[in-house]
């Protein structure tokens, strides 16, 4: 008897195969990186165009959830869009209930709770994405990662998707506490450039500061990749 066709069935050795397969989908997804600095968090994603005819710069893979909260992902594009919209709504709903901005912990927990919901009900499949959620709480920068099983954890720097291991090793070697925004930005770009094919057009970068998000435009990314290529 196969234990992997239905979501709501454990295997004899305690695995939920559908959830594991969802995590495989994430591992095949394009690479994304998150780096926590002292006064900013950097999110970087690899973009890939389906063909030369597609305009790569119109693909946006970093979603803004609130004025100082952003999310990116690895995995299925469409699932990310849905989850991002639900999380955006939850940010606003929190404000109606409580007036204050939700903390990053709260939003990360909400996102992972949504992902967990779909590991426990029939007729639906898990979300095929792992997300990186970055923002500020109590003036401290925070970076969270969620995955299809509904787990949620805080990270100093991490990466998801294809070549995640390679990037994580690079980050482990070079990340240190208290990076300034510029250094964190260079670190993220370098990490991405090692794994992304054919350079700058395929990278999207976002800097999350205490009160705003800065989405780097095409020219800024190009300049940044040139500077990074010259280092080391």
């Amino acid at each position: 008897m196969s234990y992997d066709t239905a979501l709501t069935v454990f295997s004899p050795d305690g695995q939920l195969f559908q959830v594991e397969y969802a995590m495989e989908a994430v591992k095949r997804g394009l690479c994304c990186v998150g780096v926590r600095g002292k006064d900013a968090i950097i999110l970087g994603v690899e973009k890939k165009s389906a063909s030369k005819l597609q305009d790569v710069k119109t693909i946006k893979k970093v979603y803004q959830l609130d004025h100082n909260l952003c999310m990116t992902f690895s995995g299925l594009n469409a699932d990310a869009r849905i989850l991002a919209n639900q999380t955006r709504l939850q940010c606003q709903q929190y404000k109606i209930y409580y007036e204050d901005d939700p903390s990053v912990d709260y939003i990360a927990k909400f996102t992972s709770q949504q992902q967990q919901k779909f590991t426990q009900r029939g007729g639906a499949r898990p979300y095929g994405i792992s997300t990186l959620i970055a923002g500020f709480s109590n003036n401290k920068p925070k970076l969270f990662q969620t995955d299809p099983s509904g787990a949620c954890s805080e990270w100093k720097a991490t990466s998801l998707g294809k070549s995640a291991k390679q990037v994580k090793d690079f980050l482990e070697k070079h990340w240190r506490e208290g990076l300034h925004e510029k250094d964190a930005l260079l670190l993220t770009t370098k990490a991405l450039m090692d794994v992304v094919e054919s350079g700058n057009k395929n990278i999207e970068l976002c800097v999350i500061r205490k009160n705003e998000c800065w989405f780097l435009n095409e020219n800024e990314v190009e300049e940044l990749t040139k500077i990074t290529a010259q280092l080391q």
Partner: protein
Amino acid sequence: MIDFDPSSFGLAHTYQKEDKDEINTLALPSAPQVIYKTLNGPTQINGGNKLNNFKHGTTTLGFVFKEGILLAVDSRASMGSFLSSEQVRKVIEINEYLLGTMAGGAADCQYWLAYLANHCRTYELKNGSKLSVAAASKFLQGILIGYRNSGLSMGCMIAGTDTTGQHLYYIDNDGMRLKGDIFSVGSGSTYAYGVLDNHYRYEMSLNEAVELGIRAIYHATHRDTASGGVVRVYHIHQNGWTKVHDGIDVVDLHYQFAQQKGLVGDGDEAKQRLF
């Protein structure tokens, strides 16, 4: 918050039927389902069956000053012209960092402030951080808006301390929520405002603030028949709250203040005294 409903396991409740509206529409605060039962007929707001209408004549006040927030309340409960109690506790201790005052319907205030306390605790356990005063008061406002026009009667102040300092909010059954530095609520509030507005300064010391609070409540209880009993005083500071006075009888206060003014009470106050 959208919480997972355990009754939705299995194929009987599939994604399409249940979640379509829940996830993608903005859920405005909805009043929790509580059924109000009345002894005789529908709830009436003013008057009605006097034996059910356990309403407060009250004076409660609160103000923000340099050392935090001071709350002072009286303790009388009246049902029409019958004094049902002179020892009511009109400051409700929601938790170690939040206090609520009671004016209007006692039951409404007690229940909903207890509900708020429950919610604050659940939030703290779930999220690892405390709710701010703004958030707690906003949450209560959300509930009261849901019960608008249902006959709730509450005029309460939420005062507390959080990471951004000490804050004072006024919330009433119409769903009004105001942030402010000085509030007084109840039938005796006009008298209390007179004294408060006259002597309030932000730079007061704790002792001056306590005295101002006591005086204001005393004057209200002196002129308003529906306020009286004892004065209770609480102080909110950055480490939580402290009960400064648990119950000073206003009758004793009357004679103390009269003595300070040199009044003897023999009807001949205007007459010059030889001693």
